[in-house]
């Protein structure tokens, strides 16, 4: 059984390359307003582990259809001879610059490729299309007409009537707006033009659907990881000796807050980059606003000493050490001290730890200070923050998933009214349980990221309408 091949043909500038770009998810397809941008055939094989399941062929648009048809009409005496006449035309004009476009586009069709004839449904039908449609009919190959809606006006009904006279199947397809399901439906429609292509195309569709599911899983995981990092993130800064007094506190705060905001922005940007890469939209230009902090006061300041212990922990450690030392006295006294040694030792250890904490902080061992003053920002405790971050990530994922590769404009994420609506309160409760754990610092559960990713993936499927 031959591999299905489809030649995308039509007038120049009617969206052939857009359709190819959308179906092949290939941004390298040159899409230009200037006619004749495509000068050569370009093949887009759909492969699974190297096995080609079908192939799209982008072709140059017709340039001299009237002249080509006149030549063919002059060389065919009956309908039976038409396909052979088209073949003869290509054979005789191969290398002739006048009919370069016609020869290029007809060659794969004559080799057995199905015809996908593309027109712009937002512009009116005209008689100048008749010659090229007639040539395609002469090839005798199975064909399908696609009405591509490039602009806002709708002449699809007029086009359908005209195309119906030349093509058995006519479909409307918006190459710029078609989501994954519409692309899949179109591929399945390709199978309708020849019976033997149905099975390989169905197989291809299955692989593409599985791939789409994998992308969703990966995107959900990337978002889950970002949320965990964002919610638990803390920016810390240890103040150098003397800096605590010398620097105005507000100055330090401003710097640290800036750093914290930058960290969150970087996490979000990194997540968006990864999601875009997953959907083959790398290097996408984005119009986006930075995520806003919702907490007023995220600062804390504390003394840390010796191996990162806080003052409180140091006191407890000192008390324990004192109790152990006192315990030895108790042991020596065979218990006659009534554990006074332990009690007093604990008290002495705790008090001395409290009194010496600052002094210990100023000591350096092997160039490492044993303690000091530290200021920190975060983690974010505001209960709404995770939803804001999640909503932004879900909205971005949806825009990226729905975006076709023919769309070359910037991705506007924070357009007016753009917001994510959670599908139901039960889902929100499930998210809240996980977010609460993260806020409490319970991020050490191995399956937390997995659980969060699963929940996020369900949101992809629920697809509530964004507020936009």
């Amino acid at each position, binding site marked *: 059984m031959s591999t299905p091949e489809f030649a995308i043909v039509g*007038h*120049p500038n009617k969206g052939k390359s857009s359709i190819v770009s959308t179906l*092949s998810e*290939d941004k*390298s*397809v040159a899409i*230009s*307003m*200037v*006619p*004749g941008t*495509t*000068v050569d055939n*370009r*093949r887009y*094989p*759909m*492969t699974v*582990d*190297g096995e080609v399941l079908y192939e799209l062929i982008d072709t140059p648009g017709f340039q*001299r*259809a*009237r002249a080509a048809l*006149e030549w063919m009409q002059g060389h065919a005496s009956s309908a039976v001879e038409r396909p052979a006449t088209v073949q003869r035309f290509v054979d005789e004009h191969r290398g002739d610059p*006048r009919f370069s*476009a016609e020869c290029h586009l007809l060659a794969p069709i004559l080799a057995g490729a199905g015809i996908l004839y593309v027109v712009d449904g937002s*512009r*009116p039908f*005209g*008689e*100048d299309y008749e010659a090229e449609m007639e040539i395609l009919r002469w090839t005798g190959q199975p064909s399908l007409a696609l009405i591509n809606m490039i602009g806002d*006006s709708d*002449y699809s009904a007029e086009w359908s009537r005209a195309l119906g006279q030349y093509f058995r199947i006519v479909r409307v397809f918006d190459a710029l707006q078609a989501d994954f399901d519409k692309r899949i439906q179109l591929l399945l429609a390709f199978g309708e033009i020849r019976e033997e292509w149905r099975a390989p195309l169905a197989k291809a569709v299955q692989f*593409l659907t*599985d*791939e789409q599911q*994998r992308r969703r*899983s*990966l995107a959900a*995981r990337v978002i889950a*990881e970002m949320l*965990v*990092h964002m919610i*638990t*993130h803390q920016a810390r800064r240890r103040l150098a000796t003397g800096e605590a007094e010398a620097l105005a506190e507000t100055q330090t705060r401003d710097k640290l807050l800036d750093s914290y905001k930058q960290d969150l922005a970087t996490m979000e940007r990194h997540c968006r980059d990864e999601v875009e*890469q997953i959907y083959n939209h790398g290097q996408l230009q984005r119009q986006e606003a930075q995520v806003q902090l919702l907490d007023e006061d995220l600062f804390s300041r504390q003394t840390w000493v010796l*191996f*990162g*212990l806080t003052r409180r922990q140091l006191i407890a*450690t000192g008390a*324990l050490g004192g109790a152990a030392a006192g315990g030895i006295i108790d*042991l020596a006294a*065979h*218990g006659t001290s009534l554990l006074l040694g332990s009690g007093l030792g604990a008290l002495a250890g705790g008090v001395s730890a409290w009194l010496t904490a600052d002094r210990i902080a100023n000591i350096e061992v092997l160039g490492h200070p044993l303690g000091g003053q530290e200021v920190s920002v975060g983690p974010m405790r505001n209960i709404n923050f995770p939803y804001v971050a999640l909503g932004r990530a879900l909205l971005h994922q949806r825009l990226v998933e729905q975006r076709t590769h023919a769309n070359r404009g910037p991705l506007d994420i924070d357009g007016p009214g753009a917001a994510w609506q959670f599908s139901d309160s039960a889902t929100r409760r499930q998210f809240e349980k996980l977010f609460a754990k993260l806020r409490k610092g*319970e991020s*050490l*559960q*191995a399956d*937390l*990221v997995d659980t969060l990713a699963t929940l996020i993936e369900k949101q992809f499927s629920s697809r509530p309408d964004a507020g936009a």
Partner: protein
Amino acid sequence: MPNKKTQQSSRSAGALLADLIDLSLVLDSDQEVDLEERKRRDRAAGRRLECWRNKPVAQVRAWLHESRPKAAGNYGQQGVRVYHGLNVGLLVAGLLSGWGLASAVLYYDGQQPINIVNAVAVLVLPQILLLLLWLVAALPARLSLFRQLGTGLGFLNPGRLAGHLVGVFTSKPEQGLAMLWQSDNAPILGPATRWLLSLWSQLFAVSFNIGVLVSALFLVSFSDLAFAWSTTLVVTSETFHQLLVTLSAPWSSLLPDAVPGAELVAQSRYYRLDEGALADPAATPELAIALGQWWPFLIAAVAFYGLLPRLLTLTISWYRLRHHLGRALCKLPGAPELLARMNSPLVSTAAAEPEHAFTLAPGSAARNSAAAHYALRCPVIDWSAAGSAAGDAGDVSSALAAMGVEPLEFLRAGGRQTLEQDQQMLAALARDKPAALALLVKAWEPPMLDLLDFLRDIRQQLGEEKPLLVLLWGGAEQVSGADRETWQLTLGQLGDPNLHVESLALASRAVEKKGASQ
């Protein structure tokens, strides 16, 4: 088939740790590699390692062993050296602590016997207490009370101290064992870190108990110890014996000699004031031998309440650490994606070859008259029935009038006309020698080579000097800027100085505006 080296990947915690550190670095640097390249490379690796498709840990490690030579540095091995160094340090610290404590507790100078109550209180009871604390720490963190207790007691853990040491003396925390303590890694590495700390604390505890046992056996062997029991509390010998029997339950059937008998308990009671049976000079030789018989009990108590449970917790910690290190290997940022790339078919829809696109030379746009108003009486050629498309002839006529173009006649070309008809029409036109010529085209259709041929034919028939006006007709809509630009660019390729491109509908509107302002 996987190679021999890969098949022999060690499942030891050290080897897993080394792989975890290296994988984290390799995956991090892998982000720089083009995604398509990664897809191809990892799918090829996945097919080579197909036999481990359902064993992600083994598969990821095998992938790493293939990729490791490309990764700079040897941070994994360095990290393992630190890990092993800390293991040895904790072992030595535990042995010394155990030895020291047992020596202090079992100190006997012949004056006062060793109080077995003290010995048990110091060497056995804290062990039981600490074991309970370990259980609390080992419990899943889901129970809030236990979690808080575990967090609160965490700083007492010698394993945690070892963890802090790693952080303090590591110059690049993200590239070695210290990565386990980085807060950003906590969600993925947290469980492994927790069990590493547990492993270290159990290692310390095991060596501590060994130190205690070795010290006790040393003292028993090389000195003459005398044990007794004494308490301020009102406890009869029978009650104390019963307590000891209960305490000895774990080894009573295995080591019956290590269970103190009622007689020994009664004989060993010691009061500070009357010094008990020890004060009886007649009984001293036999009693001295009997009092030394407490040691099997003490050794058994340390072994059964200290060493054996700690060996068990050490084993559990080791297995849990391995398990979580394996899990972490598959959960590191980039690892799930790597596994997906390895085990999913490589689906590609993109072009196999780069595009060879045609681009227009810059600065070649056809002229667009600034005045947009002419005083012309000339024939108008309607190309491909542009005048009747999406509008009516009346619209075109008024638009032409607004532009100052008075049609002498409407002629047809392109579309359904044959090339021969076009030529005949041009030949007839040439005979009339018009002063100028206008060509009405659909603005929304691109100028194709068919039309460019026709424009060249016009020049051939009518000469180069006559003004040729290409009028863009937008039909029911205004001519868009993009369409106008397309026409100007394409017709500019003809290099015809007398060819002008005008937008009809725009010109019409401009005239209306002009009229309104007057």
